[in-house]
């Protein structure tokens, strides 16, 4: 993008998020997305017909192809640009910079980003016919749990990290979720010992180190900084100051590293675009599908050194009252993972924190937030630096 270092590249003026639920019955993903879209448009104080750009996740379920046309039709939109963004858990943050880029390219002025999924009974088994299905699944490695367990084993082996070090991440997330009435684990805190006492799923990963799948949907409205300045907004605008994206592999068995991931170069690029250093961040809204993913992200982010996440966490207030708020909404370990919408939830929490609408868990005057998205098995990465008007140059 042609904009200078630290200049706003796009502006988030509205967000919407459905309350996560463990199960759904008879709903459609397009219906959930529509409800989230309505929330975001109301939040932005705009009319639906101002939307002329539409980005969506791949799992609108009902239709494998022509998803943009199907969803546009369903929502009664006639966008000037529309695309599926398919980056797993990095899809939500990946949409936000693409929205800004589409606007900067003159392809749209108001872009709606939608990602969500239902959890109706009996999901069909994966129809995959790809190298993972051929070379990993036949050896007993179905699903993501084994992949992330490899990461935890490698971290423990390389750095001498302990089971309790990782359990602390889950306990912190559950504690933060007690300030978020929408979190699936609101009312259900967990101690480090609770995490360690939960059964092994893929050893060394315990059950409580793994996200709980839920249904939900998220939406965000992105406009240009210039348009945001001219709008009569109900809330303060939140600017996209920097973005980075990187893909390194699909299967964990083919990952170039088991102790660092593609988020590292993504975050470095996002910092460079924003003209900031990690020490300036007030909010870390980082993708935490598993405890080990959060640990590697903190290290790759430069918040602490390689292998040092546990020392960094030790004795630190990681809630919204601390010097740096770590997933103050509880993260996905505390809120549940609404499929791909889980990735967007980190961006939405950052928006709430930066504009002062994180009711009951508001950090004190934050200006800069890191948002990360992580797809597949540490395969697809998107990092965003979001900032307030004061943080933009």
């Amino acid at each position, binding site marked *: 993008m042609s904009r200078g270092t630290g200049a706003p590249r796009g502006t988030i003026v509205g967000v919407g998020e459905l309350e996560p639920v463990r199960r759904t019955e008879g709903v459609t993903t397009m219906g959930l997305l529509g409800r989230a879209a309505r929330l975001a448009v109301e939040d932005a104080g705009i009319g639906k017909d101002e939307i002329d750009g539409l980005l969506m996740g791949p799992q609108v379920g009902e239709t494998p192809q022509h998803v943009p046309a199907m969803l546009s039709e369903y929502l009664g939109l006639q966008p000037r640009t529309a695309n599926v963004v398919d980056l797993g858990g990095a899809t939500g943050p990946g949409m936000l910079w693409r929205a800004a880029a589409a606007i900067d390219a003159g392809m749209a002025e108001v872009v709606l980003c939608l990602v969500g999924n239902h959890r109706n009974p009996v999901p069909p088994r994966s129809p995959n016919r790809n190298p993972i299905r051929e070379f990993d*699944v036949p050896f007993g490695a179905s699903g993501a749990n084994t992949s992330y367990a*490899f990461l935890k084993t490698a971290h423990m082996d390389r750095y001498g990290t302990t089971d309790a070090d990782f359990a602390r991440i889950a306990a912190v997330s559950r504690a933060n979720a007690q300030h978020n009435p929408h979190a699936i684990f609101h009312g259900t805190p967990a101690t480090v010992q609770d995490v360690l006492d939960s059964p092994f799923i893929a050893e060394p990963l315990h059950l409580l180190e793994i996200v709980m799948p839920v249904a939900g949907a998220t939406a965000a409205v992105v406009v240009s900084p210039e348009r945001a300045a001219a709008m009569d907004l109900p809330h303060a605008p939140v600017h996209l100051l920097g973005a980075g994206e990187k893909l390194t592999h699909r299967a964990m068995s083919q990952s170039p590293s088991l102790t660092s991931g593609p988020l590292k170069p993504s975050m470095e690029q996002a910092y460079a675009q924003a003209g900031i250093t990690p020490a300036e961040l007030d909010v870390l809204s980082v993708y935490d599908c598993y405890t080990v993913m959060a640990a590697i992200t903190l290290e790759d982010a430069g918040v602490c050194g390689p292998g040092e996440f546990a020392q960094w966490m030790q004795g630190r207030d990681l809630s919204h009252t601390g010097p740096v708020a770590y997933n103050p909404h509880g993260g996905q370990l505390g809120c549940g993972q609404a499929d791909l919408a889980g990735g967007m939830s980190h961006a939405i929490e950052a928006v709430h924190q930066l504009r002062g609408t994180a009711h009951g868990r508001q950090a004190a005057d934050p200006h800069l937030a890191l948002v990360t998205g992580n797809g597949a098995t540490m395969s697809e990465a998107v990092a965003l630096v979001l900032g307030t008007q004061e943080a933009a140059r």
Partner: protein
Amino acid sequence: MTLSRETRVLTAAQLSALTVPPPTPTGETRHFWDACAEGRFELQHCPGCDRWVFYPRALCPHCWGQDLQWREASGRATVRSFTVVHKPGHPGWADAAPYVVAILSLAEGPTMLSVLRDVAPADVAVGLPVRISFTTVGEYALPTAAPAGGPR
């Protein structure tokens, strides 16, 4: 560093008794599975950049050379990382749990995932030398791994 306290050893016979999802060969990979069925562990080698390739492809992922040649590999590897699966992602593996799957660093360079047999999870560590041989599961000979020093 060992990790697990599990002492149950998964045997080749237990693996062979499983009904689990088989490989799904394509035109690019059929040769690999055919060689396995004949007891040979063959990988692709790129004469252009002198590197080995796994999984099989139509072109070298390193230099995009298109003259990949099948060559018998050593079958020697070390454990890059591993997990002890207690709750398998596919129900067909329930009878084998807890079992060890590992990412292997093949001596030739590529990495590959496989299941470890003839070893207690408590005896597995990162860096463990293993040797690949074949276990019949369903209609396929799967390249599985066991400690290079023999059963332990």
